[in-house]
């Protein structure tokens, strides 16, 4: 199975690649201006975190919009990838009232395949200046933290997932399990 990581200029983009590699997936980091045609044989996409301020200037996210429109497989957006998913599909993102850097605690409100096997509450690692302020039509918010109401979201029908926190870093609890759950979705979609 092939799951590529779209590089949005994040500090932990390469970590996303590492986790996928350790989970035995055929993976590669691709620049975020790669043509959609490069992703024909890909089974799932991760839209990585990044430096662009999606809440202020979503224009710096390369071809992420095209991937969301044209890629038919499951997509996991992380941080900037998650915020862009929201803005591109009819929701909104803006500078966070209280940005989060480092440790936070996430509470899962809605059961979902992405959090299967996980407890309701777990420690996560964040690094965000912006946040999703309005989830797009057709999406459900899945989890929140005391300072950020949309820590996770998904489209009700399509396999599109967004996470504000970073499952790919060592300090986020159950990070690899979340990726494993996403990979299960990718398997079931091929």
């Amino acid at each position, binding site marked *: 199975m092939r799951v590529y990581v779209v590089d949005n200029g994040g500090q932990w983009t390469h970590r996303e690649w*590492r986790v996928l590699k350790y989970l035995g997936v055929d993976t590669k980091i691709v620049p975020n201006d790669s043509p959609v045609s490069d992703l024909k044989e890909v089974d799932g996409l991760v839209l990585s975190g990044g430096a662009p301020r999606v809440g202020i200037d979503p224009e710096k996210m390369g071809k992420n919009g095209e991937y969301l429109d044209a890629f038919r497989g499951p997509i996991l957006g992380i941080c900037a990838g998650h915020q862009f998913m929201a803005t591109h599909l009819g929701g909104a993102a803006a500078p966070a009232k209280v940005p989060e850097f480092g*440790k936070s605690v996430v509470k899962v409100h809605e059961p979902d395949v992405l959090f299967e096997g996980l407890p309701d509450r777990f420690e996560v690692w964040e690094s965000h200046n912006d946040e999703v302020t309005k989830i797009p039509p057709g999406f459900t918010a899945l989890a929140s933290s005391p300072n950020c109401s949309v820590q996770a979201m998904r489209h009700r029908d399509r396999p599109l997932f967004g996470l504000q926190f970073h499952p790919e*870093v060592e300090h986020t609890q159950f990070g690899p399990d979340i990726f494993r759950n996403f990979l299960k979705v990718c398997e079931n979609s091929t």
Partner: protein
Amino acid sequence: MTFDAKALIVEQVEGIRKSVAGKAIIACSGGVDSTTAAVLASHALDDRLLAVYVDTGLMRKDETEDVARTVKELKVNHRILRAADEFFAALRGVSDPEKKRTIIGNKFIELFEREAKTFDADSLVQGTIAPDWIESGGQLRDRIKTHHNVAGLPANMKLKLVEPLRDLYKDEVRTVARTLGVRVAERQPFPGPGLAVRIVGEVTPEKTVLVREASAIVEHEIEVAAKDKRVPLPWQYFAVLLPVQTVGVHGDLRVYGQTIAVRAVDSIDGMTATYSKIPHDVLDRISIRITNEVPGINRVVYDVSNKPPATIEWE
């Protein structure tokens, strides 16, 4: 699935052999990354390799002697350069942390290019690892800090760059190091710019002596506590000299002295970290020793910041 060190070793030794037609020099700091890269390069190139260690004047207490030993154990051609005067001169009057890193990176290359010419090498092997190029940024990726071995390289560098550990994180490098029997596999990370980035503000020989002594105390006390199982050995633990003077009292006399910050963090790959929960009596010993033994320091503070929002190093 876990990291396959043996496969990487085979792959990278072959890779180095393919990349280096003639001769290469390798930049050695005595640290895990460069020593591991040097062992791989020695397997690939043998006689065609020159290991170069630069004593920048910014190394820790007794470090140069230890590094010289590590380099000799590689059993390849080696040179030990004493360049403290050159580095201090280049850093005179510079306070900006990014400027310091760039100056040091450029100075390293200047010295390596000199040695490469004499040895007739066309390639430079470095122990660069993933966090180095990730944090140095480029295009979309913001520069968090200039790692001397990435962004400190001049654009017109003549040597061909060979970096066998580029995709690895420190925990993976240690696995490779242990597999190869590298003596320094468990050594704590030490930045290429050395003590220059552990002095906030201008770097001088006098300040370097102070932070070197303070760091030796921090390292010793924490290692003793870790050996006694009072605290897990931190990922990194060191002292930083701050540009802050504060009031103190010494023997009924007012003093206006300098401040040391103690930094200790727990991490697996250096990309996220938590501050180490050092027992208070250990911090107490560190504080008492530093303020008694290191002249001019009358205050010690402990850094309670995770990464993010801070970085592990202060600069």
